[in-house]
């Protein structure tokens, strides 16, 4: 008998949602000592399915059909109290954002002990002793000191380890992991995945792993189910589904995953359009009377960029890549160094002299939901730049229609507002806004990080096409090495504000020189996947 069996599970959404059923007729089995992944894009219903197993569906969302059989007993028919007793000893769950998932005002030790004491009659002291051991098993250093720490004092990776310790404290038979690594840096992600795999093997535990990343599926799962719009479109062993996908959607998803293999050829030799040397930016925390040390976000960074080429800047969070981009485009004022645009140093130029030059460097932002003014129409947003430069409104609108078509949108959308468009469409609008000024340099700051993988592939292709057509010099910021490999001719790796390594994409990926780059490459999920 499988440990967990979902049988024709159907979950309904409350009135007014974009579709009536979040999950429709889903059937799935998880055996003992097995890792099963549910993979899908946002809105596929994968997360709600996981929440339903724990009985943690949000208010208004109800399971209306089918059954969830755990060791033969239907969880949907159990009382609240019976379900409560299962949470922890039978089934446990970890969530995506460990910072949000831990109570900010309770110490780590107390929170984990709370889980233990909810089901076992132990004193606080004994429970905390057990906690200390657990934290050590999770690979955390100084577990005793951590007992008294608060969540905000820990790093992302440490917090997720605490969550895992909490979940495993009562040795559950089934662990549900809802995108547990999505909010973490890529190197941390690799460590957490390794940890989960190790613990699973040690305890012969079953794991239901929710993810959107096929690389993770390849590394972790024994079996996988692909969900789309609330239904399972394909399922089977990992080897089957990844090796010979039967359904069109699965094939499209797999094709959209950036492989990081087809390296772009080295760019044609051209004179550098943008030359940055010794760029430095420091931030000082606190007000006038604060004595806290300054953080050097960007430390003596140099780079050069020519027309028609894309330079990727890759790094984890805190590496300074976004700050670098903002200094180059003068959204921030650098403390030292030069930024030469066609020979003119714009790094320390006064705003008045800088303004006419601004149109030559434009930017596409990361968050499609806050990069467009929610109270302006698309037409106004896109034509604002040229109109400020003096272009006639009618002419600007005509050009806007053309530019929108160029990025794959219909000109009619000029009358609509941002909230009527999807994330991918909004990124296209952001790109159109940038292109309207006929820039020479385009900076793309994590333009696809917030998008689903199929949409991501489309937008990446669009960026590459546009670069070629308009012969732009493109600076591409990203934390995802696979994405960098898809669109960049050269790649620069950053860490703690400094450049660690730089070179042609092919060279960086096949023969990395620095240890950090090697670690980054090794951390890419699914690297061993054919």
């Amino acid at each position, binding site marked *: 008998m499988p440990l967990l069996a979902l049988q024709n599970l159907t979950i309904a959404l409350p009135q007014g949602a974009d579709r009536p059923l979040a999950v429709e007729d889903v059937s799935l089995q998880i055996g003992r000592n097995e890792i099963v992944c549910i993979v899908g894009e946002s809105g596929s219903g994968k997360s709600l399915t996981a929440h339903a197993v724990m009985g943690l569906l949000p208010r208004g969302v109800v399971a209306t059909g089918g059954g969830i059989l755990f060791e033969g007993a239907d969880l949907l028919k159990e009382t609240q109290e019976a379900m409560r007793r299962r949470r922890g000893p039978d089934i446990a769950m970890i969530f995506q954002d460990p910072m949000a998932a831990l109570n900010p005002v309770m110490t780590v030790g107390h929170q984990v002990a709370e889980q233990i004491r909810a089901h076992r009659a132990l004193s606080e002291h004994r429970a905390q002793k057990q906690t200390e051991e657990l934290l050590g098993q999770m690979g955390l250093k100084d577990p005793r000191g951590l007992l008294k720490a608060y969540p905000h004092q820990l790093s992302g990776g440490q917090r997720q380890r605490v969550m895992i310790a909490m979940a495993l404290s009562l040795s559950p038979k089934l662990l549900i992991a809802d995108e547990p690594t999505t909010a973490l840096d890529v190197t941390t992600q690799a460590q957490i995945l390794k940890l989960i795999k190790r613990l699973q093997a040690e305890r012969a535990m079953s794991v239901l792993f929710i993810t959107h990343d096929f690389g993770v599926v390849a590394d972790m799962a024994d079996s996988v189910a692909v969900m789309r719009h609330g239904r399972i479109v394909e399922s089977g062993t990992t080897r089957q589904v990844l090796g010979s996908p039967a359904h069109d959607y699965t094939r499209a998803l797999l094709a959209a995953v950036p492989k990081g293999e087809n390296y772009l050829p080295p760019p044609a030799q051209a004179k550098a359009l943008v030359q940055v040397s010794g760029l430095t930016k420091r931030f000082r925390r606190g*007000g*006038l009377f604060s004595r806290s040390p300054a953080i050097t976000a960007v430390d003596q960074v140099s780079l050069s960029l020519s027309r028609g080429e894309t330079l990727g800047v890759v790094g984890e969070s805190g590496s300074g890549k976004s700050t670098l981009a*903002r200094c180059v*485009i003068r*959204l921030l004022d650098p403390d030292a160094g030069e930024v030469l645009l066609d020979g003119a140093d714009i790094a320390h130029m006064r705003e008045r002299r800088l*303004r006419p030059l*601004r*149109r030559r*460097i*434009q*930017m596409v*932002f*990361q*968050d499609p939901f*806050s*990069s*467009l*003014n*929610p*109270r302006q129409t698309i037409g106004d947003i896109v034509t*604002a*730049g040229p109109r*400020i*430069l003096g272009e006639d409104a009618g002419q600007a609108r005509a050009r806007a229609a053309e530019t929108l078509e160029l990025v794959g949108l219909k000109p009619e959308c000029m009358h609509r507002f941002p909230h009527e468009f999807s994330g991918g469409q909004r990124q296209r609008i*952001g790109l159109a*806004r940038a292109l309207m*000024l006929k820039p020479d340099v385009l900076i793309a700051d994590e333009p696809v990080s917030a998008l689903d993988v199929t949409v991501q592939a489309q937008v990446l292709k669009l960026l590459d096409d546009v670069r070629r057509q308009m012969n732009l010099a493109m600076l591409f910021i990203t934390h995802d090495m696979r994405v960098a490999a898809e669109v960049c001719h050269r790649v620069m790796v950053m860490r703690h504000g400094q450049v660690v390594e730089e070179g042609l994409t092919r060279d960086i990926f096949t023969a990395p020189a620095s240890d950090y780059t090697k670690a980054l490459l090794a951390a890419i999920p699914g690297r061993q996947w054919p």
Partner: protein
Amino acid sequence: MSFARRFFASPPAIFGFAVFLAIVAIALAAPLLFARGPLSIVDMPLLPPGSPGLLAGSDVIGRDMAVGLAYGARISLLVGIASTCCAVGIGVLLGAIAGYYGGWLDDLLMRVTEFFQIIPSFVLLMVLVAFLQPSLGSAVIGIALITWPQVARVVRGQFLSLRSREFVEAARIIGMGDARIIFTQILPNALPPIVVVSSMMVGNAILTESALSFLGLGDPNLMSWGSMIGGSRVAMWVAWWTTVLPGLCIVITVLALNFIGDGLNDALNPRRRG
């Protein structure tokens, strides 16, 4: 759903709006309906409501309560709206500059608002009004002066958070100047909390004005709800209507304004639950 539809979807908001309109109507119509004004003596003092010709009874001197209540509406609305407009005008201007530019301008504004928070504001108001001689104008100026810091704080907070939003960065990149960014990009997005705070402030201003008149610091030539209550203190124990009725008027008016404020809040922030 458009803004108007969302606003009128909530029964309290409709109720508040209707009541507010009614009060405005009465205030505007008062000189037409009661041409003799509220200060003239019409009958014996302390007659109960329902006495012939006296819908709301008469007060301690023998003036018509109903006329007094109608004219009192004019004062309350006038002071409430005028002082709020002034306070909002000052507060938005200073708050926007401080929030957008930051630095020492922001520090300065924060020190000033802290100062106003530390001083007992009602006592300061009393001093101001006494200094300027109690009148309608001094009430408006005084109330505006002690309430603008609230608005400025809200506006500053909004501008601080909005100025680092990506669409504002985008506006800077395409070459928009500061003034244009403030007015066309940030301000329209900062409006919702400003509107909500303003509607609450009108209610508070009406309460403050009535407190001033109650203490005898209102305009001595005008009849206001607060002065009616203040003047009826001696008679309260035997003639409850002289105190209760003006007070009810205040409660109903401020309640209506607060319902409107809540309705505005829900209509402008549709994502908020509960």
